[in-house]
């Protein structure tokens, strides 16, 4: 079954595009069927249906009831391996 992952940033312009691409590559490498929903932080609420994970590249203050793993390492390059492992754990642990 396709796993829906929300990738969000302030304007869905640059950073979430990068993070979304990284999540797609990661899932492909690990045989996970993923559906990416790339949106603004302000649009998370209305796109939550069916989502199993949120990967924001900006701060998320609210609790949406599903795991949130920051996608910042995809931008800064620092801590990327750890982030990838955390994302896999959520998606494979389902």
């Amino acid at each position, binding site marked *: 079954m396709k796993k829906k992952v929300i990738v969000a*940033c302030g304007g869905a312009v*640059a950073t979430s595009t990068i993070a979304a691409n990284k999540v797609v590559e990661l899932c492909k490498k690990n045989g996970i069927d993923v559906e990416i929903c790339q949106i603004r932080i302000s649009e998370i609420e209305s796109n939550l249906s069916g989502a199993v994970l949120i990967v924001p590249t900006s701060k998320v203050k609210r609790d949406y009831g599903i795991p949130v793993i920051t996608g910042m390492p995809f931008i800064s*390059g620092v801590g990327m391996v750890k982030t990838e492992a955390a994302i896999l754990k959520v998606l494979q642990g389902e």
Partner: protein
Amino acid sequence: MIWEALKKSLIVKEMEADSCEDVFRQLGGALIREGYAKSTYIEALCTREKDYPTGLDIEGFGVAIPHTDVSHVNQAATAIAVLKNPVTFIQMGSDDEEVSVKLVFMLAVVEPKAHMEELQRILSIIQDKAVLEQIAEAQDEETMIEIIKEKEN
């Protein structure tokens, strides 16, 4: 390649700025003058930076990648500023963590998905502290472009 698209008129060395808004006015002004961005671009950058800051701490080197909604952009471009004195930005993903920024890569983005590869190339430059240090210390615009060219090859 990023280096091929860089224009000397969009590179500012030794920029004297006292705030991130000041950087946006000067560097965003260059993008507007050259026709890449609309007159609303600077205001939009300032607003967005408050909600979604773009400072990054790359192993102790402060860099920022301000950008804003595609509706304020005419044509994709990257503008670069080396700040004479570092300016405080808030770190991306935080509310109040400050980072002292020396180098600014301002992105004018029109179609994020179509520019995926370019965005990734810019990030791979930004993630390399040694390259950032070289760009900050470059004597002139040609040298900066040359450093980025070498990094991309």
